[in-house]
């Protein structure tokens, strides 16, 4: 009985690690949204830096988990049929964390001066990309437990990504229609695109996830 007990012990541990990996992404998205809100309200203050540190730590923890999951999948030759798909999903999902972290570092280093009239647009955009990222996490979790449900989450990711695109276009148009200096306009546009990039990445991952889940349900 020992080998089968060991097999289930190992299985449970790996399931927990995968869940924990997606917890890190969900948590990062919440902290990211709060950090941007703080920045828009009070600039790169101590609270903003704390949140940035939190996202950085989450990214490091997620990296450790990713390596451990990949290692176990390969060394124990688990899920031979879906191993490539799971590794692909985890690696691309990890890039979301990198995006969150990179975006906050840019705020911290470049300290863009965002005029009052555009702040609401940035806030709305951030909220929308975080929603896309959250739905993606739910879809990724569903891929492991009930692949038939993935499509519903993916649909929401696409909706939020489109919405984010519309907000970013409106925001960029407003920025370039304003009387600001061109370098400042370019700087502000850079941040719009950086935030919007989160939703674009979430949509790319959702597209992959759709194929992975079809393969699992066939």
């Amino acid at each position, binding site marked *: 009985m020992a080998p089968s007990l060991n*097999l*289930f012990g190992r*299985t449970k541990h790996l399931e927990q690690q995968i869940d924990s990996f997606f917890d890190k992404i969900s948590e990062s998205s919440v902290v990211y949204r709060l950090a941007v809100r703080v920045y828009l309200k009070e600039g790169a203050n101590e609270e903003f830096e704390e949140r940035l540190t939190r996202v950085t730590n989450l990214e490091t923890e997620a990296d450790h988990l990713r390596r451990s999951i990949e290692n176990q999948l390969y060394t124990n030759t*688990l*899920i*031979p*049929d*879906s191993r490539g798909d799971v590794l692909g999903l985890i690696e691309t999902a990890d890039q979301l964390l990198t995006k969150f972290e990179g975006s906050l570092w840019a705020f911290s280093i470049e300290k863009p001066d965002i005029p009052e009239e555009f702040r609401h647009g940035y806030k709305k955009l951030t909220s929308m990309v975080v929603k896309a990222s959250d739905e993606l996490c739910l879809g990724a979790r569903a891929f492991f437990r009930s692949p038939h449900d993935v499509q519903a989450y993916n649909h929401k990711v696409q909706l939020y990504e489109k919405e984010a695109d519309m907000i970013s276009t409106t925001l960029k148009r407003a920025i370039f229609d304003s009387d600001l200096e061109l370098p400042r306009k370019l700087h502000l546009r850079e941040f719009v695109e950086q935030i919007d990039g989160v939703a674009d990445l979430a949509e790319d991952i959702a597209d992959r996830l759709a194929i992975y889940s079809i393969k699992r349900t066939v």
Partner: protein
Amino acid sequence: MDPLVLIFLTSGLFLGWALGANDAANVFGTAVGTKMVKFRTAAIICSVFVILGALISGAGASHTLGKLGAISALPGAFMTALAAAAAVFSMTKSGLPVSTSQAIVGAIIGWNFFSGNPTDSNTLTKILLTWVLCPVLAAIIAVILFKSLKLYSKLFPVHLIRADAYTRIGLIMAGAFGAYSLGANNIANVVGVFIPAKPFPDLVFGTWVFSSTQQLFLMGGLAIAIGVFTYSKGVMMTVGGNLGRLSATAAFIAVMSHSIVLFLFASRGLEAWLAGQGLPTIPLVPVSSSQAVVGAIVGISILQGTSGIRWATLGKIVAGWVATPFAAGIICFIGLFFLQNVFGLVVK
């Protein structure tokens, strides 16, 4: 014991070795080929359960072969098993799928012709019908299992990683059951022809008697086990590769369907139960393990609607049904002629 007995038995043991080398792949091929189960684990489980199946449930199918032709002289049994082995070997060499069941039946009929023994047409018809029924039944069982498993996984979703662990355990259990059924059903091919000659004295241990037939089954089982350990790894890898498009779950279903079919055609208990209920019984006949697996895979393919039926493979199976028994029968007839007229041995 006469050392000649052992020499005469070698042809059967060689056939057993070939069976182990080839047919273990039907049971554990996909599991080992896809690295879901280690070869060592597969080989140990396969060997133990083949021997258990042969010893516990081997008598049923052997009895049917005995009815087809009771070869009472050891040299005759030797040539019958050798002819079957030679047919299996040459068909394998020419790349045709081959079944030891079909080879041994052809060889027995060859012996019947040579010795002027009438072939029991009822038994022969029963055997021939079973060969057609075997892959068809495997396909039907595979379809039922596949549908049930799909419905179950939709109703009770399991985490991908946990499902993988369940599949591994399922493959090992299905493999053990498959090996047991293979031993029970196919041991008749390996040593069945030697049973009427009673080559060994019964061994008595207190109240327990280890009969000549059981000793033969044990030797045959060991020969199959040696075939598994020494030669089946390559075949398993090839089968795993060939059936690469099958998922691990589909592989589990294929092995399970194969095992159920082989068990149905070997179980005396089931036969007695069906007879007791007044239902028609399932004939206890050695069937082809390879054709059962192919039947199951065709069943799954039809259900998935991906590639449909592989007509070329089916054509080869039908060709095998015809060519293998004929080849074995002819080789047996010629071999017996030489044994009798050149070596002066009694073959009937």
